[in-house]
């Protein structure tokens, strides 16, 4: 009896998770636009998706922001770990980075928007990259540092004894050992930045439209099955990324 209940709960939860997605995907092949019921099968909306320049511009913007923010937060995050590995007194600084995930993104977005406006930095892709990098650092540094502390100290000592300088040791021993955790974190940061809506909503200004903002504008105004087609494409993309994440077998947890 308990078994059946358990299965029922789990099945209905997964149904809850996937029914909307399946309906969405099915309707991406409907010949008629959104409000109308199922009429017939077509690839038409995928073709239109291909030719929607605005959408691809937004997609490109999101991609640029996500790539820049991911690499930036990864690079400066790793360099901070490098500083820590060279015996820098980072203890007091590292606790600074645990706030990023704790405060609501809306508050961070509001604070950044007010700040940028105050010192009159033009809003756009750059400010968006800055904001997403802050978000990314909140993931990169705690995760990378936790992994860094797990590394057997004797490995770095062995490297030093074998004649490698502290810097060589970092790049030849520490960094390769951090790599799986870093890749997993980078994927996470990338997808969070790529899908981010709240920061983009506040900090992008009106020049830089990201994919999220484009979808929002479509949701707020006319909806078209092109969005369904887009969903299908993005689902494939994120499935792929999740697969990569899984195959890393790193012990990095998403939380």
């Amino acid at each position, binding site marked *: 009896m308990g078994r059946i209940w358990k299965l029922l709960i789990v099945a209905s939860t997964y149904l809850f998770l996937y029914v909307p997605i399946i309906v969405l995907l099915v309707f991406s092949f409907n010949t008629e636009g959104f409000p109308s019921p199922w009429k017939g099968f077509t690839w038409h909306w995928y073709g239109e998706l291909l030719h929607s320049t605005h959408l691809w511009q937004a997609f490109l913007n999101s991609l640029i922001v996500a790539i820049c923010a991911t690499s930036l937060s990864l690079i400066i995050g790793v360099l901070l770990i490098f500083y820590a590995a060279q015996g820098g007194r980072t203890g007091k600084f590292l606790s600074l980075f645990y706030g990023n995930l704790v405060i609501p993104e809306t508050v961070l977005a509001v604070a950044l928007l007010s700040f940028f406006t105050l010192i009159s930095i*033009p809003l756009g892709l750059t400010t968006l990259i800055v904001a997403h990098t802050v978000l990314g650092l909140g993931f990169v540094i705690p995760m990378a540092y936790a992994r860094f502390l797990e590394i057997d100290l004797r490995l770095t000592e062995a490297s030093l004894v074998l004649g490698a300088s502290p810097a060589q040791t970092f790049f030849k021993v520490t960094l390769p050992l951090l790599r799986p955790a870093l890749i997993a974190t980078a994927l996470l940061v990338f997808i969070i930045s790529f899908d981010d809506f709240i920061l983009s909503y506040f900090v992008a200004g009106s020049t830089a439209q990201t994919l999220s903002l484009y979808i929002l*504008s479509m949701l707020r105004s006319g909806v078209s099955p092109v969005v369904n087609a887009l969903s299908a494409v993005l689902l494939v993309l994120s499935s792929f990324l999740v697969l990569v994440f899984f195959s890393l077998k790193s012990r990095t947890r998403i939380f």
Partner: protein
Amino acid sequence: MKWFTRSLITISWLILIFSCLYLPKWEFLSNKDSLNVFAWGDILDPAAIAEFEKESGIKVNLNYYSSNEELLVKLKVTKGEGYDLIIPSDYAVLLLKNEGLLKELNYSKLGFLNRINPRLLHHNYDLENKYSIPYEWEIFGLGIDKDYFKDRPLIPSWKMIFDRAFVNYKIAMTNDPAEALPLAAFYLFKQVNPLNASQIQDVKNLLLTQKAWVEAYASFRGDYFLATKNCPVVFASSSYIWRTMKLFPFVDFIVPEEGSFITIENLCIPKASNKEEAVYKLINFLYRPHIIQRHFELFGFFPPTLDAFSTFSLDEKAKRWVYASEEDFSKFHFFRPIVSSQQLRDLWVELKE
């Protein structure tokens, strides 16, 4: 010594980071052979701008704002420097003019004045049109589901969204208090003037009562609610409904007989601009019939000139409003603040709390 070096390193990093952040601004200010246009997000056709750039060899930098207030703030801060052409709405023109931020237009350089729809000129915000020329306009009204009203009484009145006696359906209402309040006040008092305390209370009560049959407050989704048959009546602007009507034939647009609201977007030149030659070239370009025609087709805003329509067939519905009679036009009002901005916001939050 160590701290001195470290401070030096810190400062160099700060300078590097911030110079990267200010870079876009710099480029934008230093470019001499270009025009900086500051416009609403969805108002200029990128293809048209590209055509102009190709024809004239002048580079056009487009920057966007999302509200008149953003435009006002930015222009006040920079004293208009760095912008060559702006597109404020009616009341914003007045505010900018009062701040002394606008340049008088040189009419000798504008070749299209005789073509402009006379109804759009000489309004209160710029009586002699010394500083502004209308570029596009739209009317607010009701989007209607014709199917729904096939066998139900349809009256062209605001009562369709405000009067409990008429409303037995769901509506979509604007999500902008700066539109909703003047509209409610106009419905109650037949005028758009600053309100006293008891009038404010009346307006509030009206909106609170209306909430019962509001499906959603959405400024830009009225067409969606119409199209999905969620609401048979939505409050919306002509430009939005125009686009929807093309896709869904059962949608109609009506302007209540009590009168309604319009907005006119105008072209203005900030006082600080010194690229007169190029600006006028661009303005003249924007008023070319085929550009205006494309603009109308693309965005659904009504064009500023009448002759634009001679080149293509305009459907009857559009014609009625575009060629509105003097009398029709006198029923149109501009949105303007009728309570203090704090009252406006508090009332709106209270309404939805």
